[in-house]
Structures are given as C-alpha cells and as structure tokens.
C-alpha cells in the first residue's frame, strides 16, 4: 500500500531529510530532482542517516562511516554489511507516496 510521506518540495535538490511513517523512519534524498526513499537508520548500528553526508549518490553514515549507494541502498563500504531497504515511490499532485509493506512482504 502506498502512503503519503511528504510533499515533493519538502526536500531540496542535494538535500536529505528524515520522515516518520507509523513506526518506519524513512530517509528522503533528492538527487538532482529525483527523490529516493531508503530506511532512515544505518543497517550497522542504527545511526541517523539524515545526519550523514551526501556526495553525488553516496551516503556516508555519521557514526562509523559506512557508505551506501543512494539509488539502490547497496553497501559500498563497511562496517555495515546489510544494504539499506529501498522504498518504491510515486509522486502525485505534488505529494510523495511510499510503498509500505509488513515484515512478511504483505501490504499493510
């Protein structure tokens, strides 16, 4: 099920911001106008990724410097081992929607 997360203008190009949807913390990063949604906490130790640095499409964790590719969540450098979850998104009428699934992969 797609849920409204924020407006498409809430995150400026080159910026990233965290939003909360139910119990999910979701990072929205704007790469040259394209919005990408990933899990908001580092898969290594739970650091707030919105506080990390974003250079081109590489996101660096602010605690232990793991690096992730923002477009697909893959790990580019440890200590993180698991990729970040990437959310499917849709934009409609200036609003950003993300697909939320439960742990079994079912829509909630």
């Amino acid at each position, binding site marked *: 099920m797609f849920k409204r997360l924020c407006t498409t203008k809430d995150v400026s190009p080159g910026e990233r911001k965290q939003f909360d949807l139910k119990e999910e913390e979701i990072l929205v990063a704007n790469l040259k106008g394209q919005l990408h949604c990933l899990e908001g906490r580092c898969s290594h130790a*739970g650091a707030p990724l919105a506080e990390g640095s974003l250079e081109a499409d590489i996101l660096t964790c*602010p605690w232990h410097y793991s690096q992730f590719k923002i477009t697909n969540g893959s790990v580019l450098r440890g200590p993180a081992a698991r990729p970040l979850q990437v959310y499917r998104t849709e934009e409609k009428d200036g609003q950003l929607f993300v697909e939320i699934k439960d742990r079994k992969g079912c829509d909630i």
Partner: protein
Amino acid sequence: MPKETVIGNGCIAIAFDSKMNIRDFFFPRVGLENHLIGHLLRMGIWADGSFRWSDDGWMIETEYMPETLVCRCRAIIPELDIHLVTNDGVHHSLDVFLRKVIIRNRSGSSRKVRLFFAHDFHVYGDALGDTVMYDPALHSIIHYKRNRYFLIGGITGQKKGWHQFSTGYKEQPGREGTWKDAEDGILEGNPIAQGSVDSAVSFELDLQPSSMEIIYYWIACGRSMKQVADLDLEVKKMGVEQLLLETENYWAAWVNRKEIDLYRLPRNILKAYKTSLLVMRAHADRQGGIIASLDSDILQFNRDTYSYVWMRDGAIAALAFDLTGFQEVTRRFFQFCDKVITEEGFFHHKYSPDGSVGSSWLAPSGPQGLPIEEDETALVLYALWKHFQKYRDIEFVESVYPNLVLKTTDFLLKYIDPETGLPRPSFDLWEEKYGIFTWTAGTVYAGLKAAAKFARVFYHRDRHEALCLASRHLREAMVKHLYDPDRRRFVKAIYMDGSRDTIVDSSASAVFLYGGFGPREVVVENTMNSIFDKLWIGKGIGGLARYEDDEYQRVSRSVTGNPWFISTLWLARWHIARTQSMMQLKEGLDLLSWAADHSLPSGVMPEQIHPFTGEPVSVSPLVWSHAEFVIAVCEYLEKHQEISIALPSQG
C-alpha cells in the same frame, strides 16, 4: 576554559575541554563529588623520541556523534605525522567511562608509537589521603579513597594490555606527578603511592606505514573494590566496542522520542535541538536534581562553581523536558523539589544534588525580606502545572500536592505586600540586586495562576478564589507600579528606597513569557521593542545583551554587554508568540538559527559569548541556555502548525 562536551548517565558526568582533556568527573551523583575539580585526565603520544600531550600542538575537532551522547574527537599531530580519532561515552546503565582510540600512522615508515593516559584524580575533590595502586591480577590501576574507587583498564585491538605504568606523587616540590615522568616515553612501574598521588599508563604499538591500530580504554567507577572489579570483568567480557554501540543506540532512541514532528526544522536547528536535550540530560542526576552546569572552571564567586541545582534553572529545564515528552526526568525533578522545599514553602538560593542547601551569597535583608529569589519558588509551581496539563498524571501530582504544592502556594500568597499587591522583595534572577523585580512579579503571577488551577482540580474552592483574586491583583499592581507610562515599557525593578530601576533589562520579557500579558498587548510590544532597540548587539555578532551596561564578564565598552543565549531566545519566543503569519514567524526562526550557529562547534551552548569573536565567555555549557532553546523550538513548531492549519494554501 569552557567545556566543549559533557557526557553522562545520571550517576557519572564527565566534561571535556577543547583539548581532549577530561576536566570534571562526577560520581556517583551528577554535580556533587567532582573527583577532578579541573585537574586533568589527559592523553599524550610518543613517537620517534618526541612526546606531545593533547594540549601541545594537536589540532583538534570535537563534536557529538549525531543524536547520541557519545562524543568524537579528531586530532592531527603534525609534528609526529599521526592522526587520532576518539569516541568517548559513559555507558547508559553501567557506571563506566568508555574510550576507543583509532591511531593512524601517516608516515611512510614503520614506527613504534606509545599512547599515554595520565590520571590526576582528586578523589572526593581533594588530593589528601588518596591511594593509587597497580593490581597485577586485574592488570589495572586503581585510584581510591574511602568509598570511591576508579579502576583504569585498557587493551589494544590486538588484545595486548598496556605496555608500562607508574604511580607516583604530585603537587609537592620536585614531584610534579607521573605525567611529567611520562614525557621521556618511559614509565617506571612504581606499583603504589599514597597521599597526593597520580598515575599514568602507556600502550605500545608497532605501526606499519600508513596503517592504523585501535586502543580501548575504560574507567570503572564504584563504591568498593569488588564493584569496580566486577565492572572491569563485565567490560572485558562485553568489549568496549559493543558497550559503545549500546550507548550510542540507547541515546539515539532516547532523543528520538516521537512526541513532536520535527521535519519542518532547518538542519542546524534540528541538530541543536537534539544536542540540547542530550546535554540537558547529562546534567540530570538520577535522584532528580538538574545541575545548572557541570563546568567547574568558572569560579563564580570565591572558588565556587555552577554545579548546583538552582530551582529556576531546574524548573525551566523541566518545562523543556515536559514539552518534549521526557516526563520521567521531570517527575524525578519534582520529587527532588518535594523533598527539599522548606517548611515555610520557599526554596533556598540553590541546592546540592543530594538535597542539602547549597552555598549562598544572598544576605538576609531585614525583617520583611528573605534571602531568596522568589521566582525560583514560583517557577517550580508553574512548571509542575504545565507538567500536569500535558500528562494529566493526577496520581503523581497528588503525591507531591500536600507538601510541594500547598506549601509553595501558601508562601506565594503570604509573600505579597498587601499595600501594593506586588511580591515582597527578594533577589533578582541575576543574583545581583534586592528589590521587587518585573521578572519576579511575572513568575509569581504564573505561580499563583498555576496554584489556582491546581486548587480547582483538587476542588479547594476557597483557595481557588483567593488565588484567582491574588493573581488578578498582582497583574493590576504590575501595571500600576512596574509599568512606566512615560517610557512606555516595564521597568526592571523597584528598590527598597522606593526608587525605580529604569534600565532596559531583557528579563522584563517575563511579562509575556509566563502569561501575565499577551504578546500583542501594547505594554508588551513597547517593552519588547525597547529591549531589542537597547540590547541588540548590532555592532557585533548580534544576539541580545541581558541588560544595559552589563559589567559581568564584560569584554568591551563599545557594546552594552555580551550577547546572552537566554535573552536572545526570549526575544525569539516573543516573535513566535505574537506572529500570525509565516513571514513574521521567520523573525523567530532567524533568532533560533542565531543561537544554533553561535553554539560551540560541538553544539554546546554557553551562558554568553564574546560580542565580536563569538568565543564563549563564562560558563559553558549552561542548561538554561539549552532549555530556552528547546522551549523556543517547541513554540515555533506549534505556531507553525497553527498557521499552517489556518492558511492551508500557504502552508
């Protein structure tokens, strides 16, 4: 030297200076026993025959890791071609200080490098009768006196213990301490010393070209040898790496309580908001006291510090904690207040964290006046009402109602001058003058209103009516006696000889801060505009001085005073309170940005800063600065929401 960062867990509190030295080490009560009182737990490095302590040419950047109470220092030692990164934390539930050090050899050759840690403990705050010893079974150094034990342990990433150690004597002719002996890179291995003593340990690393190594170091704190030995075992079993990760996650979870939607905040303000909450939390003792500042370097008067519970500062911190959902912290604070309130119903000047009355410079003044600051009593009552208004925890409030609420209420009522309707004289919030102050009157008004609301909740009808009447009369008396129609603003004070103090003082903001007058009432508009006109540091870096010609820590005659965070944030709160449009709201937001941007690089907010350089002056951090910032942010978000709902198309 102001403190760059503070960390703690409610039992231990530790403050660092900007040179990576630990300067304050409190245990087992936050703010009570300082086992360093400004002396150093320091770090040094030896390589290629040269030695450098961290305050000797290291280039250091200090910060908090985002959203947690673990700090990180990055250091470059150019002469030795070595880079260091440290992570420092106090475990959230174990009484142990944890440090991880990553050492990088930047040179192109293999080297033997030694890292030194020196410990100048003054257990219980003095250097008399201490013992320090090496325990070969634990491979640890232990400092102790009476019921305080500090066990120092360490290990390298390659599981090697330390290389050398020594214990020795200090503060005596010819005996500067083992830290001095360390500067030749060698420690002599003396196993025990007693009296005025210190210790040092070293790790030896064989670093390949452009390689790195890790050192883990800890200080376990306890009341007995067994306690620290058990803790040491726990640290060795779990590992510092794991315990630091636990600490990072605990505080991240703590600060991210989902009470408020923060995403509309600009990044600098959001970061400062979270850092503020964490710094405030580090000042909260597990038994309820909230310390004004852990910075022991500022000797305010006669070798005394800010490490006390001022009820004013505590109440304002409680307002901030309650607004943001941390009711456990505030309940403990109100229980502390319940414990220490006097039979007469007022609070003394300040308290130690164990509830004993703190040192004071407020002289008793005649039969009518008490040596107190009456706003401290009023603000606790006001904060407790705001707490109840948010959480409706009637059972908790009932537990403090008979003592804390009724006694303070009766005191506020009795301490009104029947002739004027104003509070009787007491000392001002700046602790400088004795009289009847606009600030105090504003807070007493809020206290009386809070008491009236409690009386209604508990169905004490007569009390409710008496309190409503008293608060109404007080408001009228403020207009009659404290408002100057010629100057078109509230004055600072009326003194015992009947004279008025007409200087512009930012504390007159109390007239709207605590609900006596609305932010758009003409008397408030005029007062706040005067405050801005007279106190804004336009020639310097901005910010608001606390009053005209403020001499406390004054650094320049070309401006009226140093910018204070609390004064600037009161102005922000007024802009936020009065505004009705997004455009006007920005005036408040800009002042929040000013506060965030003029904090120390770590995010710590001092009391005041230099008007031209922005360097901290006086105490740092100051919990009150952080608390006013948090309150202002919450008020900004609430107003933003209010305006957004009213004007959805512009939201």
